[in-house]
């Protein structure tokens, strides 16, 4: 009995020492938490089959600004947004805060439908499961209903509710922006 208790204490003390040693390990390179799953360049090349058009800019003003605000629940933190447009396909790279940090996401849109959604940069301490294809695939083919909501239910990820919400809301914003610029193109 005594021996057993001694061995258990040894086990737990050993684990504590191990954990302290791990915590005291030399610092890793800074910025390691900013996980880049895909660069902007890679996403653009993938979306446009390596023939990326010139970047364009749209200013957030008037009804577009208020529409985006209504979808996001707050103003988008930029005065204007860059996008790429070729042959009816537009690509948007947008940021939204999940829990504490901005998540950078890429959206490719054609005919008012999402054709590709990718998590490009993840900076939060939890919820990175949103990068998995099994999650992002759910957005393929989705469009807007009533200007602000996606036309389908997106299954969440347990423990990553805020990150999931960020993707869902930003996908709707990307569709709003794409629909707006396509209308401008038609009106030209």
């Amino acid at each position: 009995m005594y021996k057993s208790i001694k061995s258990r204490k040894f086990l737990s003390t050993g684990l504590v020492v191990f954990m302290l040693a791990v915590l005291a390990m030399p610092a890793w390179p800074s910025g390691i938490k900013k996980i880049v799953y895909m660069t902007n360049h890679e996403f653009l090349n993938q979306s446009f089959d390596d023939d990326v058009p010139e970047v364009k800019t749209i200013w957030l003003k008037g009804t577009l600004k208020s529409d985006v605000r209504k979808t996001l629940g707050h103003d988008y933190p930029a005065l204007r947004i860059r996008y790429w447009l070729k042959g009816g396909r537009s690509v948007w790279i947008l940021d939204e805060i999940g829990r504490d940090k901005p998540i950078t996401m890429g959206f490719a849109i054609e005919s008012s439908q999402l054709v590709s959604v990718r998590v490009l940069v993840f900076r939060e301490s939890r919820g990175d499961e949103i990068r998995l294809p099994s999650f992002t695939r759910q957005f393929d083919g989705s469009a807007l209903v009533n200007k602000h909501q996606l036309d389908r239910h997106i299954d969440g990820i347990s423990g990553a509710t805020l990150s999931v919400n960020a993707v869902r809301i930003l996908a709707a914003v990307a569709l709003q922006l794409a629909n707006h610029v396509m209308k401008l193109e038609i009106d030209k």
Partner: protein
Amino acid sequence: MNRSLSLFLSVSLLSPTANAVAAGDMPSREEMWQIIQQQQKQIDALMSQQKTSDARIEETVSLVEVTADAVDQKQTAGVSKSHIGGYGELHYNNLEDKTSGTKKNEIDFHRFVLFFGHEFNEKTRFFSELELEHSIAGDGKNGEIELEQAYIEHDLSASLSGKAGLFLLPVGILNETHEPNTFYGVERNQVEKNIIPTTWWAGGLGLTGHFGNGWTWDAAATSGLKTSEEDSYKPRNGRQKVSKAVANNGALTGRLKWTGLPGLELAASLQYLEDITQGEDPLAGAATLAETHAVLERGAFGLRALYAQWNLDGEGPASIGADKQYGWYLEPSWRINQAFGLFARYEQWDNTVVAQADSQYIQTSLGANYWLNEHVVFKLDLQDQDAPEGAKELDGFNLGVGYQF
């Protein structure tokens, strides 16, 4: 182009002169030359002004772009390094104890919680949770102020982080995520409350790692529970809450979790506790908690299922049948739309399984959540308990409102 413009202007200006010809008042060739030269000077001046204007417009556009870039960068960089948040829930309980006939008719601001966090740099952060329970704390009051989380988290690599301080143990569904808008039912379920025991926090060190597609592991070496024979060796009564907690015997906790498919979480936790009385009861000893659960959300359908069991060593717990304590529940739900959801829950738990007398509780609940938005929820549920003989058997309904920010 300058010549064409010059010629056009000259002809235009000469038009009145042409009329003068008819009137016999034509300027001389020298005068016309002078007029042309003057007009040319004016054209040159205008062209120069236009060039200047074009340059200024270009410069203005460039400055607007630079300003917009700066504003955008400031807005992006302006994400604060300190974060606040919180949640709260007001409950109304209208219950009757079928055993004694007494009623519980109470309204209670059960929990008011504030989160505060700070990011020291990209790898190191602080997180805390301070809670006021039952509105008023102090001598003779119903409530208490509790520090439920206060730890430093440090990223050791992209897939490994460590934490030190006071933190929630990685066990069960609600222990780490219990904001009122994230679960059904006014009160938290009885199994996680009485068996696990949620909310359960401890002081020590923890590691969290990620691997593969959606796998997460946790390991923690922390302070342990301290229960006693007077408390019937119930884990819930053994929570020391890291308040001058006796630390004769620590606890090791591990969890493996998989969230590789959207809407699905599968997890299993294990805790080994060296002595559940911290060495103060010679008839008690080590204890082990095993817990496993599944959370499924597919479209409108949801299901939560959890099983937890304690095994306690020693003659003391065995003498009252507390050497085995367990509970489980099933909770199907139906999210009718974004705002409205229904649920049912069946749960049973027993803190003295091996006792000769019946000691098992069963509770069935039915209810609804109405989400005003994703952060605010109104709740209603009906509960029906089946308690052991002589124990409180509370039936009735509960109402609640909760929020998170």
